């Protein structure tokens, strides 16, 4: 998400009526893109997409395969799986960020999309927080405490670190939820196995 642009949601769904309904619900708040199958979904996907709503059972590429390709491309969009049955497997293990069971209600859809966007906000805040903490540590390592007392940049850093720390503890309820916890860790990226 950059500047004042609206978040982009990509709907990958082979049933046109269902896809239109989702679009209708979301279009007031988000820029909505639509794709009828996995291949088209992958073609529509770029850095601007924040959230993907991915139907699990589609002709051609399955939702699982599309997810795999999204992860391979290293895009940091959030992916919610939409499924007809309550999943009997652990969606966290599979690498999805959330899931929705059909029939999906409007409120559910809104809640899910806004939660996924909040996770992205958290990632961005944490990145900024890290950058400042690192900068502060560098100053502390290279300057005496007397120099730091007179250093305006240092004081500004201190204030900003504190502000960001507060923002972080208010985002995602301070990581109250297991799914938020795992998804936030997933955002750090695993080290590839040899």
């Amino acid at each position: 998400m950059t500047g004042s642009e609206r978040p982009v949601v990509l709907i990958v769904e082979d049933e046109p009526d269902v896809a239109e309904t989702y679009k209708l619900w979301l279009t007031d708040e988000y820029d909505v893109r639509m794709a009828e199958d996995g291949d088209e979904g992958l073609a529509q996907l770029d850095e601007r997409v924040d959230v993907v709503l991915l139907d699990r059972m589609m002709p051609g590429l399955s939702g699982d395969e599309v997810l795999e390709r999204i992860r391979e491309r290293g895009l940091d969009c959030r992916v919610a799986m939409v499924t007809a049955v309550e999943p009997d497997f652990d969606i966290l293990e599979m690498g999805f960020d959330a899931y929705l069971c059909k029939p999906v209600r409007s409120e559910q859809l809104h809640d899910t999309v806004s939660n996924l966007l909040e996770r992205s906000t958290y990632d961005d805040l944490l990145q900024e927080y890290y950058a400042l903490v690192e900068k502060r540590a560098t100053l502390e390592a290279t300057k005496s405490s007397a120099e730091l007392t007179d250093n305006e940049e240092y004081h500004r850093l201190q204030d900003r670190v504190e502000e960001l720390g507060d923002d972080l503890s208010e985002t995602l309820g301070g990581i109250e939820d297991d799914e938020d916890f795992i998804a936030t860790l997933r955002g750090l990226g695993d080290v590839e196995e040899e």
Partner: protein
Amino acid sequence: MSKKSDSEAMYDLTDVLDFEALSAVRPGSSILVSGPAMTGKDELAMEILADGSDNGEGAIVVTTGEHAEDVITDYRDRVPGLDESLLGVVDCRGESGRDSEYTPAGSFVYHLSSPGEITGMGIGITKCMENLANNGADSGRFALDSLSTILTYTDKKTVFKLCHILSSRFDTAGYLGVLTIDSAAHDEQTLQVIKQAFDGMIEIRENDGTREARVLGLAGKPTDWQEF
């Protein structure tokens, strides 16, 4: 970073390490245990956990260097009459991919193939928490040994973020987190950055064959060094 109420029971760690600053540690706190190799960091972390288990609290261990069965055997010796269903272990040295099991005595064990699998670690910790909750422990103590191993698989940025996210999770869950780092294995700036993700730190050193500790950040000014 917490806004928890004061009414929750504080963790008293003075039986393990006799510092006033450790007499009432707020639930949800994360503590970094820092010191050079062979000065008893992991020992201290495990003693803090065992102290909780003595009182029937839950315990979660993430180990980057030891096999789960060794951790459990060692833990059994520390806690006589241990209720093993209140112990969960995430073993990052698994031979195969991710999988989980229960030991015959009821401990939950989650295996990962590498300490670089941050997401898997999160899943393992979550499952341990779920198991402890199912067995009656809604919160408890958590130890990770050691961040230094994870730092060899990834960078300080990732480890800082990992620590911050863990701290936040423990904060909302009311857990006490104790994570170790080998202070001699990393440069000063790395240590300086990583400790910012914690509420406090226990620093350990060896002085003429005597082990000493001090506490920073948990209550007021840093304490003096004290033998332990």
